[in-house]
């Protein structure tokens, strides 16, 4: 038993520790269950779900770049019914809070997905994907306009009592505007950051490497960008923050907590070392002990900026 209290409350999602995984990097949990003990995670965040099954983008869907990767998977997924049928039984069995990332092309679709998931046992919270750069129809169009964020969050809020956590886009002039818009519209928590819009060109063929031409940059390259945005968001946030972007070990996660995050998500690093979330968890605990802190909550927002 740990002598450090690792529990956090992420806007009503009660986590036994502050470490989850980033949507899209961990499938539906099941895929990694043979490689890591998923029951040790604070929460499992699953890949984006819309109302109906969605095929995603043509291949190639990814490119490796220094410091990370650029992806344009395009939110391929089984739809709400397929997700609930094929993956919820396994997820329920883990006993770990399940955060479902949801998206749609219109407000009504987001609201309908939220409504349906509200009736599903074992779903602990919804991450609202308003910032995926890879699907023209959905996501991003909402995420870079504060009025659209406000309207969408309010619409989904009316459809569910589940903890609601919009995932903010990093490529905006002032993140604080979006933090305010989302929390005033009824968000219980905020997730940040999504990938940064990016592009890779094959210089021999002079063609974009991704079939979608553009994609989202993830991995260690974006970590300092994310830290700055989390720190700025924390200055105006009245709701807890889930931080992600380039975590490869405990150090980056601890930075996020100090900057003001309540919980953290490991993303691209899962592909390289599936044990990363557990290493991060153990590293945070060791850090707290070393600094004579007995709760992880005490670390949140402990930046000495003066």
């Amino acid at each position, binding site marked *: 038993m740990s002598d450090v209290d690792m529990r956090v409350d992420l806007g009503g999602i009660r986590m036994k520790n502050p470490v989850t995984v980033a949507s899209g990097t961990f499938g539906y949990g099941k895929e990694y269950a043979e490689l890591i003990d998923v029951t040790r995670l604070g929460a499992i965040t699953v890949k984006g779900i819309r109302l109906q099954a969605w095929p995603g983008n043509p291949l190639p869907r990814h490119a*490796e770049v220094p410091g990370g990767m650029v992806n344009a998977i395009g939110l391929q997924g089984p739809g709400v019914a397929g997700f609930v049928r094929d993956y919820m039984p396994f997820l329920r069995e883990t006993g770990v809070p399940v955060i479902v990332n949801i998206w749609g092309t219109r407000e009504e679709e987001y609201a309908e997905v939220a409504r349906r998931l509200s009736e599903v046992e074992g779903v602990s919270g919804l991450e609202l994907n308003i910032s995926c750069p890879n699907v023209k129809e959905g996501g991003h169009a909402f995420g870079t306009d504060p009025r659209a964020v406000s309207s969408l969050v309010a619409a989904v809020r009316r459809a569910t009592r589940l903890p609601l956590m919009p995932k903010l886009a990093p490529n905006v002039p002032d993140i604080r505007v979006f933090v305010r818009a989302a929390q005033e519209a009824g968000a219980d928590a905020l997730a940040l950051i999504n990938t940064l819009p990016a592009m890779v060109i094959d210089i021999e063929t002079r063609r974009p490497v991704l079939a979608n031409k553009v994609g989202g940059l993830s991995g260690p390259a974006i970590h300092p960008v994310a830290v700055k945005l989390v720190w700025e968001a924390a200055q105006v946030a009245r709701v807890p923050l889930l931080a992600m972007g380039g975590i490869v070990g405990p150090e980056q996660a601890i930075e996020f907590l100090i900057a003001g995050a309540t919980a953290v998500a490991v993303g691209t690093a*899962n592909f*390289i070392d599936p044990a990363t979330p557990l290493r991060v968890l153990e590293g945070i605990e060791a850090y707290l002990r070393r600094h004579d802190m007995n709760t992880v909550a005490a670390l949140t927002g402990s930046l000495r900026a003066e």
Partner: protein
Amino acid sequence: MRDVTCRVVNQMPLKAGYWALDVEAPGVAEAAQPGQFVHVRVPGLEPVALRRPFSIFGAEGTRLKLLYKTVGRGTAQLNRLTPGDTLQVIGPLGKGFPLAPQGVPLLVAGGYGVAPLSFLARRLPVRGVTLIGGRTSDDVLAAEDFERLGWTVRVTTQDGSQGETGLVTLPLDRELAHLRGSGEMPELYACGPDGLLRAVGERAIQAGCRGWLSLDKHMVCGVGACLACVQALRREDGTEWIGRVCRDGPVFEAREIVW
């Protein structure tokens, strides 16, 4: 599947740019089936490089053999490893080749596609014919291994530097005609570029035999989570679905693939 730390035993040059890498992979090698692959974290590319998938070239006891061609920074770094060095390996991954042929096995390899077929040639209960195609003789690998195991080997190169000049489908069509003439059913197994797989698949459908094709796609997670390596597939009832090459494959029957 397991994520294990492996020790390099040996690196052996095969032909220009092609290498065989032997590693001690307890917990992975014993479970490996022909057609499966491993996902390798190449040391020295840390902390951020993605893993690289490699077909299993052979497995005996706790020893795993991989075949690779030095094409980029990952394989160049792999090539710097010397005996005693360690690397992280997730495996065995994916679904391999079925091991109970209903006819005479014909193995069709293009370039380093020979890797899983060499492993298969050891594990199949019967022997048949292996057809190896390469651009030049430098791309014709492991031909002697198949012969040693009792397989008949036919080689083609596009520049005529070894074996017959042309594509591997030339001797394949002759073998298929020969079997047809003698009233025997073939069973096809192939690994190589998409063009080769497609050609072999078409012949399997024409001949009314099974054709097992191992797809080579760029991968990210290797375990079916990220959906970077998907392939359009067809069920027996004709409906289509999107499969993951890493988890639902990499081996598919010719009729399953929607090209």
